């Protein structure tokens, strides 16, 4: 099943409106061009062979980053982000999901803020009891307070999500960015390697990998997600760099003798980073979902770590007599995933308003 975290699916394409078929397709239409300057933006002939369908073409980006900031004259992309921020502040979806995420991060760091109990302390006499005063979510199989465990469960999910995303985004954008900039054999090799990782069904890979690399900590899970997650980011970064590289101001910088490193860092990276940020944000949500699924299958996080996936797994067997055990951790997990996906969706819309 294409779990949302499956890197084979370019989340941004399916989640947010897809861009032009060839990336950077129909430009124009910006403020400068005026609305009458209707671009001829039909489907572009695909370049080269299909990469398993256009939704997975290198860059799901239509307007080139930085374009609206006044084109070649202002290549820093500041205008793009200023405009996007202007839009985002008024977007209720963005505000709501950002608040949820801030809240989640806070309770991941200080769960004591809102939960005074001990997530490990169980009172078997109250096993599976429903809500009681001071215990609004009831008790689990071992008489532990579901509310406290739900609050403490955020830490594992957020840690895995953020660490795995940082790892995958760093690795992916460096490898993909270099491949896009330099091209050649390195580019070819990288896309073959990415194909190999795409060839492994992610849940199966997770089961196999985590059943042999076991430890009580979150790091094998994080490592595995980085291992299978980076190719997706690298593809996006590569496509983004390839598009930006063709811009006149980049060409100009190269002709004027700027070094590769300088061109890449000063001129290309700021403009190519937007799609990576969007994809990484959405991926963060899906990685949390992946961690919970692996924990549910018994190979991800292991007790005594407090994790929504583990709690859902044990609640699932008891669903007939104690549905509340499932409801709260499952709800918290879904809302967390949703918050990140919606945040990415909103950011994407703001960065690429033509697609709305």
């Amino acid at each position, binding site marked *: 099943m294409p779990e949302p975290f499956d890197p084979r699916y370019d989340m941004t394409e399916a989640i947010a409106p897809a861009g032009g078929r060839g990336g950077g397709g129909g430009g124009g239409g910006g403020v400068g061009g005026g609305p009458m300057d209707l671009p001829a933006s*039909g489907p572009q002939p695909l370049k080269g062979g299909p990469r398993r369908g256009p939704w997975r073409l290198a860059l799901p980006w239509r307007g080139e980053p930085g374009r609206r900031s006044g084109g070649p004259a202002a290549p820093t992309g500041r205008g793009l982000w200023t405009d996007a921020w202007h839009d985002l502040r008024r977007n209720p979806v963005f505000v709501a999901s950002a608040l949820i995420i801030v809240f989640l991060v806070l309770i991941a760091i200080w769960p004591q803020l809102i939960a005074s109990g001990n997530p490990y302390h169980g009172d078997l006499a109250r096993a599976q009891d429903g809500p009681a005063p001071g215990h609004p979510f009831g008790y689990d199989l071992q008489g532990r307070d579901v509310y406290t465990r739900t609050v403490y469960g955020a830490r594992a999910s957020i840690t895995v999500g953020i660490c795995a995303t940082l790892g995958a985004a760093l690795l992916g954008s460096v490898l993909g960015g270099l491949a896009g900039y330099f091209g050649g054999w390195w580019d070819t090799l990288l896309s073959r390697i990415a194909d190999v990782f795409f060839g492994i069904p992610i849940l199966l890979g997770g089961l196999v990998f985590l059943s042999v690399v076991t430890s009580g900590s979150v790091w094998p899970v994080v490592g595995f997600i980085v291992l299978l997650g980076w190719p997706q980011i690298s593809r996006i970064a590569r496509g983004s760099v390839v598009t930006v590289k063709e811009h006149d101001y980049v060409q100009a910088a190269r002709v004027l003798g700027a070094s590769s490193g300088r061109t890449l860092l000063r001129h290309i990276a700021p403009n190519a980073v937007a799609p990576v940020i969007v994809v990484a944000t959405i991926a963060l949500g899906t990685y949390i979902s992946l961690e919970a699924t692996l924990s549910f299958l018994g190979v991800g996080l292991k007790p005594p770590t407090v994790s929504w996936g583990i709690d859902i797994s044990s609640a699932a067997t008891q669903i007939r007599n104690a549905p509340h055990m499932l409801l709260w951790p499952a709800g918290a997990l879904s809302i967390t995933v949703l918050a990140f996906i919606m945040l990415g969706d909103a950011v994407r819309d703001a960065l690429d308003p033509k697609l709305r």
Partner: protein
Amino acid sequence: MAARLLDVRDLRVEFRTRDGIAEAVGGVSYAVDAGRTLAVLGESGSGKSVTAQAVMGILDSPPGRVTGGQVLFRGRDLLTMGAEERRRIRGAALAMIFQDALSALNPVLPVGAQLAEMYEVHRGMSRRDARRRAVELMDRVRIPAAGQRAGDYPHQFSGGMRQRIMIAMAMALEPDLIIADEPTTALDVTVQAQVMELLAELRREYAMGLVLITHDLGVVADVADTIAVMYAGRIVETAPVRDLYRRPAHPYTRGLLDSVPRVDDRGERLYAIKGAPPSPLALPSGCPFHPRCPRAQEVCRVERPPLYEVTADAGADGRTSACHFWKEELHA
């Protein structure tokens, strides 16, 4: 006076953008008689294509919206007509040729099928008959081996051949009027002439009216009867082609004419209109051309010029100019 073939009256089109409402077309009027050619001349962004799209009823809406005016086609207003009736006119009596044939043709249908469709839908022909007519049509626009090529897809044709197919599609039902939106802009110079020639020849043969939208003064001189010059969403001058070339009555037209390089002026500095066209979101007060106009006076900043009737020496018929100083310009 008999009803004109196409009579656009005070047409207004707005675009809603995130930066505000842009008036893309601000009260355009022009007319074409049967069998005549009107050239609509203007820079990109002057509203000439948007006007044509509004006439055809293919405006992108949203964001575009017709906010006023009339489009009389054979005396009937297309804008107030029922959708179904208007559809029957589109393609059959009123056809359009687009600039970029590669994107304007459906990439996944053979060109023969796209042509045959016209006969199937408007004439109710059988698929086989329609297909035969499509091949004839391709032959008519001089596509070599038309019978075999009818099964090919748009991307398999060269730019010039694709534009011929566009022309064939517009001609298919022998319409009364064709609107050609920059039909040769996307082509190589050598091919441009051939395509333009074909278009002019077919127009003569079927005695169709033609609205030729272009920014190319060279194209206009050969084929047009009348010229309407557009600037910032308005007509600034209309005149018979010869009069306009000889004695423009608007400084913008003069600027356009002077910026065309001529063989006999070699070595002289080429004239360029200073500045850039205004943003439709922030049109200048008064005459929209005044910030760029060499003749601008205080009145131009304050008062928008109406379309003055231009009466030249011979009492030229139907000339108009939207310049307070059209007389001075005419006699300059």
